[in-house]
């Protein structure tokens, strides 16, 4: 594409032909306020917040749908533009309940932010507001407050264009327009909670995070989702050393702006009932709590007494853990085959948007650290099943369902219990 030269508030910007004014402004570091525009969704042009003045054009134009043209002069701070921003904000707020004190979006709400930036005046609307449903459950993760909604339709477009599941639609007309589930659908697609992230206001909130903590108390740590091997970039948001939520972090090479619901809520496993919090040892009649010393001694004794052993490590282990595991096994049972546990699962078309068949985030890292056998995991597993290897040391995986049903390894209900841990 040929580049074109335009000016934004007098500043010269060179940008590819075919781009829009709002994209050009973003590249030039000029923020144009907007609600309905989202770089990953189609242009709706309905919020009218991004109206800007284009020289030689009589009417203000929406920056999101105006393509750049050679020599175009864009004004984002002219009196006309500032006035219309004020007006649009006033329009958006006349039927808004302004219930910020009880709204989870407060603190990261674009209505609040833009109001403080561009309006800051008392509303002239003193008539009865339109009322709408305050808590409509859209799906397992998302709840809708119609009164806070500004009808930007980002959520509707997300379900049409990204997941292609069409659960949401706009119903009714005029100021009674509202978002609703289409027919009898439920917003339960694998990416459903992303609508909460793209909702610029407090209309769509996360049922899991709702009413837990005010967002300004959250400490944000950039990280990578441990939910599967896709490695979506996330922000781990914590309050008082507990994870309050995962939020997606933009990475165009991996996850764009989204994360899947499975990844988003997987942090609950950290505090969930199935996580081991004390060492357990298998005795007659089941597992009993013990001390770390006793547990490690039991492992050591088991491995030493075995004529041959195999080492299986979870794909959720870190590179450092894998390195140490390989080192330990090479010392204790030299020559024993080591492998990283690998399980594939079937994924639907929608799940494939972000989710990987391999649920373990670090299968490759473990193998690269030396936890690797000729023939791979499947071959080692067959050997174990055939009884060719009398003992196995399994780290971080629950292959035999010892801890509450074998959740991690339900694919192997026929697992031989001859093998001791």
């Amino acid at each position, binding site marked *: 594409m040929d580049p074109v030269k335009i000016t934004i508030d007098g500043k010269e910007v060179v940008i590819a032909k075919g781009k829009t004014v709002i994209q050009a402004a973003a590249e030039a570091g000029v923020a144009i306020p907007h609600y309905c525009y989202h770089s990953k969704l189609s242009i709706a*042009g*309905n919020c009218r917040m991004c109206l800007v003045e284009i020289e030689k054009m009589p009417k203000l134009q929406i920056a999101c749908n105006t393509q750049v043209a050679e020599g175009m002069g864009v004004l984002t701070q002219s009196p006309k533009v500032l006035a219309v921003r004020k007006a649009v904000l006033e329009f958006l707020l006349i039927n808004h309940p302004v219930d910020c004190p009880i709204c989870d979006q407060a603190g990261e709400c674009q209505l609040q932010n833009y109001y403080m930036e561009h309006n800051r005046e008392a509303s002239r609307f003193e008539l009865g507001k339109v009322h709408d449903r305050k808590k409509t459950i859209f799906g397992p993760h998302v709840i809708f407050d119609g009164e806070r909604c500004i009808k930007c339709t980002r959520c509707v477009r997300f379900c049409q264009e990204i997941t292609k599941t069409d659960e949401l639609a706009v119903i009714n007309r*005029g100021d009674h327009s509202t978002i609703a589930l289409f027919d009898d659908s439920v917003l339960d697609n694998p990416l459903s909670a992303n609508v909460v992230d793209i909702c610029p206001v407090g209309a769509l909130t996360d049922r899991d995070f709702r009413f837990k903590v005010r967002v300004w108390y959250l400490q944000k740590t950039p990280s990578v989702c441990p939910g599967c091997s896709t490695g979506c970039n996330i922000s781990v948001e914590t309050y008082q050393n507990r994870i309050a939520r995962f939020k997606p972090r933009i990475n165009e090479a991996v996850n764009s702006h989204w994360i899947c619901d499975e990844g988003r809520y997987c942090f609950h496993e950290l505090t969930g009932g199935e996580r081991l919090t004390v060492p357990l040892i298998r005795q007659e009649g089941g597992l009993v709590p013990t001390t770390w010393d006793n547990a490690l001694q039991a492992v050591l004794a088991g491995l030493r007494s075995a004529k041959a052993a195999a080492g299986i490590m979870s794909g959720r282990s870190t590179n450092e853990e894998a390195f140490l595991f390989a080192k330990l096994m090479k010392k204790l049972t030299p020559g024993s085959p080591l492998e990283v546990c690998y399980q594939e699962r079937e994924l639907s078309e929608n799940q494939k948007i972000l989710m990987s068949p391999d649920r373990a985030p670090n299968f490759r890292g473990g193998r690269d650290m030396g936890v690797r056998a000729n023939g791979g995991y499947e071959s080692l597993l067959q050997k174990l099943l055939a009884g060719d290897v009398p003992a196995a040391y399994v780290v971080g995986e629950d292959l035999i369902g010892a801890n509450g049903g074998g959740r991690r390894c339900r694919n192997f209900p026929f697992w031989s219990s001859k093998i001791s841990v």
Partner: protein
Amino acid sequence: MSMEKLLLRNIGVTDSHTLAVYQSRGGYQSWEKVVRNMKPVELIEEVKASGLRGRGGAGFPTGMKWSFVPKDSPKPKYLVCNADESEPGTFKDRLLIEQDPHAIIEGTLIAAYGIQSHTAFIYIRGELVAGAKILERAVEEACRAGYIGKNIFGSGYDLDVIVHRGAGAYICGEETALLSSLEGGRGWPKVKPPFPATHGLFGCPTVVNNVETLAALPWIIERGAAAYAAMGTEKSKGTKLFSVSGHISRPGVYEVEMGYPFKKFLEEDCGGVPNGRKLKGVIPGGGSMPVLRPEELEKVNLDYESVQAAGSMLGSGGVIVMDDSTCMVRAASNIARFYAHESCGQCSPCREGCHWMEKIFHRIEHGEGQTGDLDLILNISGNIMGNTICPFGDAAAMPAAAFIRKFRPEFEAHIAEKRCTVSTQ
């Protein structure tokens, strides 16, 4: 006013809606002439030369609109007849639909040929139940007679016509909302650009023409562009239909040569204001156009430019006459209520602003108006004007502002005395 009727030439003739009567009066000869003797480009030039402009309200030159359709597009092209007549005070298209459906169909066929469309739609307003039946029957007749279908007149040109009923939303008269509705979606206007000429129905090149525009085509082909262009003014050619209603002696649909004096039209042709009352205001182009005071009518002629110079617009030609018994607060409130009810809710200024204005008009009308209300409405209408996706915002803002600007003392009296000072109702 003695002039040859173009658009209304078959109105009043017994069984004018039937093919037999239409044919007996020269019907479908223009269509045959077009298919047999004219290339699409010649047809477009002819329509351009006639000076015909869109009769739906915007007055855009019809031939030029057709010429925007890309000829080399591999996509199918569509012609859509906009029969979603819903503008308050407008009932001209309904008359044609019910009494001269074949003229509309013939015009639709000619226009479709001009842009080389093989599927044409007639999108008719949901409430016009009888009209839809009449049109469907007429399309069937035309199909059976070979005017519609495969290989028309042995030319190899195929054309299908589908009558589609709307579900009763004013906004679906706006061409892109009409297309959304025709596609099976919510009747929401589309953001422009792209324009329908390149990305219209189902993303394909599309032309949407009003019923009256299309109904003028058979005559233009029959008599030639020059004959049409000989009528009217320099920029407004031909004749136009006006739907006259309200406080007027002879309400009805009139065909008027463009440029005819407005005042003469009202007083002589329509018989003036009845019952010895005085004229108070006239809306010249349907509910969405600014009202004019009697003194503003003096030099206005019925053409696009003259009405615009007077501060209003010719629009759909829906002339609403109000005599001095009319409470202008009530009239404004009524119009505001219509627009609040019909706003599609897509873009913020219109969705919120129309209702806001309506609520303020309502309270003024009911004796609860406050000082500052009038300036507030003017400010709100100014904030809507020009800032919306489609012209609906302007259509709601313009009349609201005009009523206040032109009849401000009456509004102020209404607020001050907390009651109507004009009407005894």
